[in-house]
């Protein structure tokens, strides 16, 4: 009796322990299920997008660059576009079958081109569409440690055919079971036996979801039991619609480098370069078919397997009357239509990423960036970015060919910005642009050499009652003593040039004249100008600062030049446009802001002098017509002992700054012209900027002056140049020797007899 009681007690205790253990296990699983599926369903990394390219009627466009962008977006050139992601190009006509992006619908659009302009955009019906948008390129993301990536879909975005296909292939009894279905297992078994291959899986969608969310793929009884409990709990807590949507967003479809592609939303982008809503039935059948073996049926790696599997899924759809026999026949003969992968690696353009991260740090924490599914719309222009990367690599190779292997570890940085709105379009932080590491565009603080001179000359020109472009500067020996140290600046050509007009001193980049001018203006007024230009660095009162000992990073330097190129309007540079939340609403924006810091007239005078750098100075070589149409201007810079080679120049709407040098600060054989300018040139020649419309400055008056003495001259006089002045500041003395040639009427220009007469008389020399 006692023994029986002990056994009963033991069994009772054991049962209680089992019960408590089971209850605890269920409670733990329940907690995990609800914790995972409630609130933030999955961690969705923030994604970085390039700017979307908008095409509008009557805007100027570089056709080659447009085609390049289409190719980057994996559009394929064909003779007659029939499917999204295809285009055709003839002499003056571009036809694109757009994939569609947000409010831009998919379809064929015809773009008439001519004279570097878009003349007309029409749709399939021949109706005018004045504005179309190409999808942006994904340039990377802020991935969590497990590197899962997805694009979350909500019900309105899920096509009906996707639901039908998933249910037909994965779980036909989905709406009738409670998470586990013996019926499904037996039906799948019979179907597969009949088909002679695995058409259907035995696990329900709920089981698959449970397995994917909480368990590893190990095949043990313990895992199967836990999976079954989790499935029942999921069914208990959530509706069928919620479970199906969770499944659609969670399934694993592919591995791209370290990045795991989850969900049909991202799957559509990854394999077809477009949203799920734009996919055809055969494309959806392919994605659903891949669930059985994402690697085995990967259409890029195993196209034959993928085609076979897709056709099998289509046959299931036909059998279930989701598609007709005729549709089935048409769909099974279609090509897979896979786009080339948009993602070169997890992250394109690492230097640009650094800049984006810097801007994000101020407003977002790391966790939000890795989990909240933010869409970060950046300003990167993939065409300019690629061109800048190519230019820096190409130039380095050219320099190695010229100067030898001592330049093997030459480093560099370059930045391109939109002059007017301060949008950063491209950033390169190394001569190996795709590698991660030290980003010289932001972090290399180097002496800027003669790049400092325009800041000093602008300080003078802003005092327009005292200085104009023909004010005579003194370029004779200068010797300053400070603390027992004598400072004697040299010119690059080791010569003294005496009295020269201000604009000549700038485009010839004479050091002594510049140092004297800086000293004359005073440190405080130059410091004020630095601050107006957007330089936030502390100023130190050394005279060597006036000829380039001042140190800045390329990013700081281009900010100052943006203010100059934009006619005195300071605009903080920005690499991000907007950040949208997972629902597509603007969460944060980086608006275009400007502040007029300097009057446009003195800046116009400075820009004229910088244009002379191209016409006759250290950046000469372009035809005058080109320089004029681009409204180009620039400045070379070379630091002491040629340790740094700089060039900054604007052409059209683009401002580009380039730095070349060694990380260990050793001497290079390069000047600003032979080094950095060559990168600029390679880049600009590649992108071929469009014409820039000039600004209207009624207070500016052009007068012929002499390039040696800065006094009045005439078009017919030798050594004369048409120079801009702020009205009322023009020189008013014409030397006797130039009276004759300067008095000749301009209207007589071009007359053969006039020129003959001129030749006989001889101009003033």
């Amino acid at each position, binding site marked *: 009796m006692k023994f029986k009681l002990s056994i009963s007690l033991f069994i009772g205790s054991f049962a209680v322990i089992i019960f408590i253990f089971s209850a605890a296990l269920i409670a733990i699983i329940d907690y995990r299920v609800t914790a995972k599926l409630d609130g933030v369903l999955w961690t969705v990394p923030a994604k970085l997008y390039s700017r979307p390219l*908008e095409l509008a009627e009557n805007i100027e466009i570089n056709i080659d660059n447009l085609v390049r962008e289409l190719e980057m977006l994996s559009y394929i050139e064909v003779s007659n576009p029939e499917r999204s992601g295809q285009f055709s190009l003839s002499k003056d006509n571009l036809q694109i079958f757009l994939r569609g992006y947000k409010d831009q619908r998919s379809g064929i659009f015809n773009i008439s081109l001519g004279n570097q302009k878009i003349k007309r955009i029409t749709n399939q019906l021949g109706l005018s569409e*004045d504005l179309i948008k190409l999808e942006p390129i994904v340039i990377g993301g802020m991935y969590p440690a497990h590197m899962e990536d997805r694009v979350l879909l909500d019900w309105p975005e899920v096509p009906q055919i996707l639901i039908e296909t998933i249910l037909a292939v994965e779980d036909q009894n989905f709406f009738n079971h409670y998470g586990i279905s013996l019926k499904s297992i037996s039906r799948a078994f019979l179907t597969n036996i009949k088909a002679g291959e695995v058409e259907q899986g035995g696990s329900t969608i709920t089981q698959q979801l449970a397995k994917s969310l909480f368990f590893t793929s190990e095949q043990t009884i313990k895992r199967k039991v836990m999976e079954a409990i989790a499935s029942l709990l999921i069914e208990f807590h959530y509706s069928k619609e919620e479970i199906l949507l969770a499944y659609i967003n969670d399934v694993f479809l592919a591995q791209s480098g370290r990045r795991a592609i989850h969900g049909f939303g991202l799957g559509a982008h990854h394999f077809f370069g477009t949203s799920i809503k734009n996919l055809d039935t055969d494309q959806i059948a392919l994605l659903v078919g891949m669930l059985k073996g994402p690697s085995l049926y990967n259409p890029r790696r195993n196209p034959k397997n993928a085609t076979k599997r897709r056709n099998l899924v289509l046959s299931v759809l036909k059998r279930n009357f989701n598609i007709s026999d005729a549709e089935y026949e048409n769909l099974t003969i279609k090509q897979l239509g896979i786009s080339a992968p948009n993602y070169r690696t997890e992250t394109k353009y690492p230097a640009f990423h650094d800049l984006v991260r810097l801007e994000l740090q101020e407003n977002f924490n790391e966790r939000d960036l890795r989990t909240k599914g933010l869409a970060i719309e950046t300003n990167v222009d993939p065409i300019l970015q690629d061109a800048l990367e190519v230019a820096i690599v190409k130039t380095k190779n050219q320099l190695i060919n010229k100067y030898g292997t001592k330049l093997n570890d030459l480093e560099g940085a370059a930045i391109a910005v939109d002059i*007017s709105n301060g949008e950063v379009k491209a950033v390169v932080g190394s001569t190996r642009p795709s590698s991660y590491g030290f980003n010289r565009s932001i972090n290399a603080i180097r002496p800027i050499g003669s790049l400092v001179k325009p800041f000093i000359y602008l300080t003078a020109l802003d005092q327009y009652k005292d200085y104009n472009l023909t004010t005579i500067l003194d370029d004779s020996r200068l010797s300053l003593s400070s603390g027992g140290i004598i400072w004697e600046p040299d010119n690059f050509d080791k010569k003294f040039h005496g009295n020269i007009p201000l604009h000549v001193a700038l485009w010839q980049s004479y050091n002594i004249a510049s140092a004297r001018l800086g000293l004359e203006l005073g440190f405080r007024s130059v410091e004020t100008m630095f601050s107006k230009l957007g330089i936030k660095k502390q100023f130190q009162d050394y005279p060597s600062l006036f000829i380039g000992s001042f140190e800045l990073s390329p990013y700081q330097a281009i900010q100052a030049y943006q203010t100059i190129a934009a006619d005195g*309007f300071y605009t903080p540079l920005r690499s991000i446009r907007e950040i949208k939340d997972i629902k597509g609403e603007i969460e944060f924006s980086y608006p275009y802001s400007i502040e*007029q810091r300097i009057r446009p007239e003195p800046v116009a005078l400075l820009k004229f002098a910088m244009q002379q750098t191209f016409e006759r100075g250290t950046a000469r070589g372009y035809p005058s017509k080109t320089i004029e149409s681009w409204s180009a201007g620039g400045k070379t810079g070379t630091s002491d002992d040629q340790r740094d080679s700089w060039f900054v120049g604007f052409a059209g709407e683009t401002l580009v700054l380039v730095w070349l040098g060694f990380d260990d600060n050793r001497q290079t054989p390069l000047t600003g012209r032979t080094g950095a300018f060559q990168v600029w040139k390679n880049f600009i020649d590649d992108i071929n900027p469009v014409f820039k419309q000039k600004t209207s400055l009624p207070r500016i008056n052009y007068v012929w002056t002499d390039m040696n003495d800065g006094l009045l001259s005439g078009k017919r006089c030798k050594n004369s140049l048409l120079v801009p002045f702020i009205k009322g500041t023009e020189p008013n003395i014409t030397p006797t020797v130039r009276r004759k040639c300067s008095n000749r009427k301009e209207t007589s220009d071009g007359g053969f007899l006039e020129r003959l007469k001129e030749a006989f008389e001889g101009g003033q020399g």
Partner: protein
Amino acid sequence: MKFLRLYITAVVSIFLFSCASNQTTRDISAYEVPVNDFSRTVELLIANEDFLETEIMRINALNPSVQRIILGADEFLKDKNYVKVNSELERALRLTKTEGALYLRIAHLRYKQGLLRESESFASRGLLLSNISSWERLLLNVYLKN
């Protein structure tokens, strides 16, 4: 011959006279700006924000594509959705930088946002355009008085 010459002269004269008499004077009321009282209009523009906004919304872009974006931006402005207005105007500015209508609107937007210095700077920038009308120039000048 003399009669024919007289006849032709009479016909031409009648035709010219009828053309002239058919001309109606330009209806300035359609524009609602009392152009005959210019200084009062300027005062009104400065003093009455609604009047100013109405006038600005009447300024169209030269490029139809840009005009399409502007119409959207104007709708957002009516709803006081300044973030979207800014987004649309910036979008248009990326297509072209030579439309006075855009600088006017963005100067007005910044004014509405209370960013008076920026408003003034955008107006100054718009004034540098060579293709703006006198009326656009006048409206831009209003923002310089902030």
